[in-house]
């Protein structure tokens, strides 16, 4: 079995679904070592997971975009003798891992879906229109570990729960890494509001609205809650300020791949499709029968969302009794 280093740019009071999934990906490859950059208090109880052997922490918490995170990773790679480093494909994790790959003089594969024991990485390309496999050119005798970032939601959450179970507290190594001075100074930090609904990228069902909502997202919110869905939007809706930017689905927003995507009042521009066309099933409601979204919808309704959505909610409630 080989050693795997998993990188968490921040760790809260519990593991996020994406973090659990990364541990599951790593545990399938070998012994799991985890490097944590930003943390509060003692993060080890959270990391008491079967398969996790060692944890590496900096002397003081290092919130991104702190460049010393790269030092932490470099030292953690040496300490863990990892053959592969895994992290998430979010902005802050990518920045640190991309720099690590330069320091180690090794390859980086980003946005992965899965990885085999031979370190062959499968990922989706060109907005989900291709699946590729790739690996290090020097795979036969790699001098340095491969660095891979993962998109979330590639392993079924129930399966993740059976793979990632509570275990003993891992061994903790506090590494002599301290924040850098100068260069990049964080002057102000504002926590983004966290919606009580399922996180978009991880939701099993996503309900999304566009310009056709005319600014009123209440019916879509109700529908989302009826279905236990995450709430998304087109850029037209987020740009108008009808809903927060974090809800934007698409090329420059969140990529989602839920089992079900319900699109309402969204035309289906290529930028929007880039973020949702790998959904299992797509249902579209649009009053224009020529809307592009109907080209990719499994079930489409040409109609007014202000009539169709309330009726859906009513029917869902009726069925629940």
């Amino acid at each position, binding site marked *: 079995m080989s050693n795997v280093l998993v990188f968490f740019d921040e760790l809260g009071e519990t593991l996020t679904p994406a973090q659990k999934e990364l541990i599951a990906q790593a545990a399938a490859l070998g012994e799991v070592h985890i490097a944590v950059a930003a943390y509060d208090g003692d993060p080890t109880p959270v990391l008491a997971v079967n398969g996790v052997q060692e944890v590496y922490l900096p002397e003081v918490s290092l919130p991104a975009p702190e460049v010393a995170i790269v030092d932490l990773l470099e030292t953690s790679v040496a300490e863990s003798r990892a053959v592969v480093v895994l992290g998430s494909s979010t902005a802050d994790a990518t920045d640190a891992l991309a720099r690590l790959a330069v320091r180690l003089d090794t390859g980086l594969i980003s946005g992965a879906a899965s990885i085999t024991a031979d370190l062959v990485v499968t990922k989706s*390309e*060109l907005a989900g229109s*291709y699946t590729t496999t*790739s690996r290090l050119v020097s795979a036969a005798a790699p001098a340095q570990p491969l660095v891979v970032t993962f998109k979330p939601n590639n392993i079924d959450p129930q399966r993740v729960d059976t793979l990632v179970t509570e275990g003993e507290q891992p061994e903790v190594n506090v590494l002599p890494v301290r924040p850098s001075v100068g260069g990049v100074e964080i002057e*102000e930090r504002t926590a983004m509001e966290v919606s009580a609904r399922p996180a978009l990228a991880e939701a099993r*069902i996503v309900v999304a609205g566009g310009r056709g909502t005319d600014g009123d997202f209440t019916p879509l919110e109700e529908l989302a809650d009826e279905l236990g869905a995450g709430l998304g939007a087109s850029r037209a809706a987020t740009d108008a300020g009808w809903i927060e930017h974090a809800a934007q689905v698409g090329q420059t927003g969140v990529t989602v791949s839920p089992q079900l995507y319900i699109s309402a009042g969204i035309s289906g521009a290529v930028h929007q499709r880039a973020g949702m066309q790998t959904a299992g099933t797509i249902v579209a409601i649009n009053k224009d029968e020529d809307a592009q979204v109907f080209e990719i919808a499994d079930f489409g*309704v040409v109609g007014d969302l202000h*009539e*169709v959505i309330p009726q859906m909610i009513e029917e869902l409630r009726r069925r629940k009794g």
Partner: protein
Amino acid sequence: MVNAPLHIITLVKWVPDAQLERRYNAEGRIDRSEGVLSELDEYPLEAALQIKEAAPDREIRVTALTMGPAGASTAAKKALQIGADDAYQLTDDDLIGADIWATSVALKAAVETVTGAAEFDSGEPEYLVLTGMASEEGESGALPAQLAERLGAHVVTYATALDLEAERLVVTRSGGTESQRVAVSMPAVVSVTDQVNDPRYPNFKAIMAAKKKPLTRFTLADIGLRREHVEAKVRVLTTAARPPRTAGEIITDEGDAGVKIVEFLAKERLL
């Protein structure tokens, strides 16, 4: 004190048009026979022009730099039309199949060549590299950090607002779970999102003016690199096209479409 001149290098990429079908060729590489200036790279260019226009007292030059096949000159020319002062195009057959590792090696040398060649009247310039949030076909967003690491520059990614002050750039960005205001000193590499501005369109006058602006083409040898410096670390083994999505059942609402959708969801076991 007079502010040092500033050299802004914006990276612009020639990419396959996302509005058309994009594909891989038999060698496992994205087909680049046709392309456009990446939409996402219009934002850093606009940001550079706005920084320049907001500081008329400071000597600021906006250079567009592109790496790509011969056709990439379209991207460089479009950048000149939009408003870049000059443009550079790095083209070399040894760069075909470059992964992000090789791309950042080549761009580092290219940025150093470009900044080294530039002459300024008001003193030694500082430099700032602006990029789009990600490439349109690679989508990794990892290049800015790799380039900064190689240049020994600071890096801030996913900027949604920029404000140039005397000796630093103040950037608003959103990281993972928070939004931040960050001050970065030069030299820096900063990537910007599509929230940062509304890119301008070149007008007729700008298109005519662009014809007189310098476009320099160079090869790996011109920037001091050889083939072995840019050999990719990662190789694509297989590519498989997903079957395209096809339209399913489309109905027109006759007053019962809400119920019909729920019936469909129940039938598909999606409830």
